[in-house]
C-alpha cells in the first residue's frame, strides 16, 4: 500500500503522547528556517511527509494544501494559471514548505505593497497542544465567524498549534514587470519613493543598496510605460528581486545581521551601510551590538538575523511586560503543557 500523504492522525497521536508525558516537541518540516528563532530541545515532530495540494480553483483565488507541501510545488501549480503567492515567501532552500512560510510569517520584497503572509491566510487546520484537531477560517474571502485564529498562527512558529492545512488567497500575476534603477543616495531615493507611492505608481518592490535605488513596477505594459515616462531611471534586470526574496543576496550571508522593521519615513543616514527594502520600512544592518533599544526608540523592532543555526540568544525584540503577560496567557490557552516548540520565540513563551 502506498504511504499516505495525510499524516494528520500520526501527528495527533504524537502530540497526545507528548501532552501525556510532557515531552517538548521540535516542529520541523523543510528545516530551512531553523535559524529564525531560539534553539528548542525536544523530540522532533516531522511534517515533511504531510503534503499535497487539496484544492485549487483559479477562479476562486484560493489554494488549500497540507502544511508539509513544498512551496516550489505550490508555486508551480499557481504559475500554470498565471497566479502567485503575492507576499513572496522566502525559499531559503528548495525544501521550504507552506507550513514553514506561514509559521514564520516571513514575507518578501512585495510585502510593503501587496501585503504580508498574514494578509493572505484565509483559514487553517491546526492541532493544539492537547492534540485537538481544529479548523478556523475557511476558503472564502471574508469570514468573521469566531476569533481569527488562523491569522494568529502566522509568525507563531507552531508554538500555539501545529498547522496541518492552510488556505491562502492568491493573486493573478500582472501582465508585465519592469525594474528601474537610479543612482541616488538612500535619503534622497526614499524621498522619491514616497512621492511615487503617493502618486499611485504601480510599485511592487524597492531596494536601496550601495548607492543604487531599484524599483520594481508590476502592471499592464501600457501602465508601466506610462510610469517609466514619469519616473525615469535606467531599465535594469529583475535578477535582484529573487536574491532579496530568498535571501541569497551576498548581503544576507554576513554574520551579525539585524533586521530592523521601522516606520517607513524613519530618517536615513547615508553613511550607514544598510540594505533598505519595503519603501524604507525594512532595513538590514550588520552590527556587533544589539539593536533592540535603537529600534524601540525609532518606534519599530529589531530581529537578530543570522542565516545559521538557531541560537540561545535573544532573537526577537523583547516585549513589554503587559504584552508578554497576555501572550503567555494565549500560549497557555492553546498549549497548556508548553510542549509545542517551547521557548522558540522567547524564553518565556
Amino acid at each position, binding site marked *: 500500500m502506498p504511504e499516505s500523504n495525510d499524516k494528520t492522525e500520526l501527528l495527533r497521536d504524537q502530540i497526545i503522547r507528548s501532552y501525556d508525558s510532557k515531552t517538548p516537541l521540535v516542529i520541523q518540516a523543510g528545516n530551512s528556517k531553523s535559524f529564525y528563532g531560539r534553539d528548542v530541545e525536544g523530540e522532533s515532530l516531522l511534517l515533511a511527509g504531510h503534503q499535497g495540494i487539496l484544492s485549487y480553483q483559479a477562479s476562486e483565488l484560493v489554494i488549500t494544501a497540507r502544511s508539509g507541501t513544498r512551496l516550489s510545488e505550490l508555486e508551480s501549480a499557481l504559475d500554470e494559471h498565471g497566479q502567485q503567492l503575492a507576499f513572496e515567501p522566502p525559499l531559503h532552500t528548495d525544501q521550504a514548505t507552506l507550513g514553514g512560510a506561514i509559521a514564520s510569517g516571513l514575507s518578501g520584497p512585495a510585502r510593503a505593497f501587496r501585503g504580508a503572509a498574514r494578509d493572505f491566510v484565509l483559514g487553517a487546520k491546526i492541532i493544539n497542544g492537547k492534540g485537538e484537531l481544529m479548523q478556523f477560517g475557511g476558503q472564502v474571502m471574508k469570514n468573521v465567524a469566531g476569533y481569527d485564529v488562523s491569522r494568529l498562527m502566522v509568525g507563531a512558529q507552531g508554538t500555539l498549534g501545529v498547522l496541518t492545512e492552510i488556505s491562502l488567497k492568491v493573486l493573478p500575476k500582472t501582465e508585465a514587470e519592469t525594474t528601474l534603477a537610479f543612482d541616488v543616495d538612500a535619503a534622497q531615493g526614499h524621498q522619491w519613493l514616497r512621492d511615487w507611492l503617493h502618486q*499611485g505608481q504601480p510599485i511592487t518592490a524597492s531596494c536601496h543598496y550601495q548607492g543604487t535605488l531599484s524599483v520594481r513596477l508590476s502592471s499592464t505594459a*501600457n501602465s508601466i510605460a506610462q510610469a517609466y515616462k514619469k519616473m525615469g531611471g535606467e531599465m535594469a534586470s529583475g535578477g535582484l528581486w529573487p536574491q532579496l526574496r530568498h535571501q541569497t543576496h551576498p548581503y544576507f550571508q554576513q554574520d551579525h545581521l539585524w533586521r530592523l522593521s521601522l516606520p517607513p519615513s524613519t530618517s536615513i543616514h547615508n553613511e550607514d551601510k544598510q540594505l533598505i527594502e519595503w519603501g524604507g520600512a525594512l532595513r538590514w544592518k550588520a552590527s556587533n551590538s544589539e539593536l533592540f533599544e535603537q529600534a524601540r526608540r525609532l518606534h519599530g523592532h529589531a530581529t537578530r538575523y543570522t542565516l545559521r543555526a538557531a541560537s540561545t540568544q535573544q532573537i526577537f525584540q523583547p516585549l513589554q511586560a503587559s504584552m508578554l503577560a497576555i501572550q503567555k496567557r*494565549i500560549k497557555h490557552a492553546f498549549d497548556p503543557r508548553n510542549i509545542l516548540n517551547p521557548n522558540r520565540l522567547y524564553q518565556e513563551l
Partner: protein
Amino acid sequence: MNTSSPDRKPIIRCLQKILPTASVLHDAEDLRPYECDGLSAYQQVPMVVVLPETVEQIEHILTFCTKQQIPVVARGAGTGLSGGALPLENGILISLARFNRILKVDIENRTAVVQPGVRNLAISDAVSQHGLYYAPDPSSQIACSIGGNVAENAGGVHCLKYGLTVHNITRLEVITMRGEHLTIGGDALDSPGYDLLALMTGSEGLLGIITEITVKLLPTPKAANVILASFADVATAGQAVSNVIADGILPAGLELMDNAAIGAADDFVNAGYPRDAAAILLCEIDGTDAEVADQLAQAQQVLSRSGATEIRVAEDEQQRARFWAGRKAAFPAVGRLSPDYYCMDGTIPRHQIADVLTRISELSDEYGLPIVNVFHAGDGNLHPLILYDANIEGELERTEELGGRILEICVEAGGTITGEHGVGMEKINQMCFQFNEQELLQFHAIKQAFDPDGLLNPGKGIPTLHRCAEFGAMHVHHGQLPHPELERF
C-alpha cells in the same frame, strides 16, 4: 426591567465619581436610545450608559466593573447589523461616541491615528486634500465608527482588491477588563510576538476596549470606471463573476443585483438600470489611467464572452456615480418594497453563487417570503434580503428560520455564516453549525486569556456549549443531534 431597582443606585454613585454626572445616563428616557443597534429586532435597555471622554476614565470604569463583577458592553455608532452592541439588563453600556477625534495624520507614512468613535467616512474626508483615503467602505460608512469597524472586521464594496479592516490597520491601543493597557501592532509594518492585531480585529468587543487606532491610508486611484453588464438569468451572471476573476482581473468592486433589486433601486434613485434584466453586474476598475483603460477593455471582453446581453461603460464621472448610486441605495430602496426586511450575510466560494442562489429562491417559495439579492459577488459575500411584515403574527419567526436555513446552505457550500456583519447576538446559534465543541472551547480559552471573568460583552459572538445543546435540541441537523455528549434540558 425595573429601572428603579435599588442595587443600581450605589453603582450609579460610584460611576459619578469616575465621570461627570452628565456622562452617566440612568433615566429611562435617556437609556431608551441605546436599547438596540442596527439590528432592531433585538432590544434591551441597559442598566446604565456611560460616556467617557478619556482613556483613564475607561480604565477606571473597567476596573470598577471587574471589582463589582458587572458586565460591560461597548458601543460605537450603533450601526452594527448583528446585535453585537445589544445592551445587557444588568450591564453597563460604554458609549465611545465622545472618542471622536482624529489625533494625527501622517502624510509621510500614509497613516492616521484616530479615536474609535471617529466615523469611517470622516477619515477619508479629512485626508482627501492630500490625495489619500481609507479603503474599507462598509455601506454604513457615513455613520459607522472605526472602532466598530475593527470590532467587526468590516468590509465593503472594495475588499476584494483592498482588503478588510484587518488589512488596513497597523496599531491598536486596548484596555482589558483588568485595566491593562496594551499596544497591539505598531508603526512599523509588522511587530514581534503573536499577531494580536488579527485576533482583536473582528473580536466583537469580547476581548478588550479599543481606545486608539492607527489606520493605513492609500493614494486615491488616479482613474476609475465602471461597467454595467446585464444578464438574462442570475446563474449566468454568477458564472461571469468567476470568469472575470479567472481571467486575471482584480476589480475594485464586483457587485451583483437581481431583478427585484434592480427595479427597487431604479425606482428610488433613477440609476438608469436595465429594468428587464434578470441580473446586472457592476464591475469597477481602478488604478493608473493606462491600467484602467487596459482592464476595462479586457473585462468587457470577458463579460461579453460570459453571456452578457448588454454591456455599458460609464461615459463620464456623472454616469459612473449614477450606476453606483443605485447599488448604494439598494437597501433603503428594498425597504420601500416591504414593511420590514432581514439582511443575511453568508459568504460562499464564488463558483457556488449560481447554485446557492437557486436554492435560496426555492426556500423563498417554500416559505412564501420574497427574497431580494444584492451583494458583493466578487467576494462571494451574499446579502439576501428577506421581505416580511413584523406586524403579521409569526412572520418574524418564520423569517428568522428561513435566514437560519440560508446560513446553513452557505456553510454546506463551503462558506461561512457571516462575511462582514459579525455573529453578535443574531447568529450565535448558527455558530454551533460552523464550529464543533473543541473549537468553541478554544475560543472560550482565548476569551479567558483576555477577560478571565467573562465580563466583556457576554452572550455574544461565541456560544456556550450549553447554548448549542439547547439550540440543537430544537433544531436537528441532517438527522444528527449536535453535541450528543451533553445533557439536555
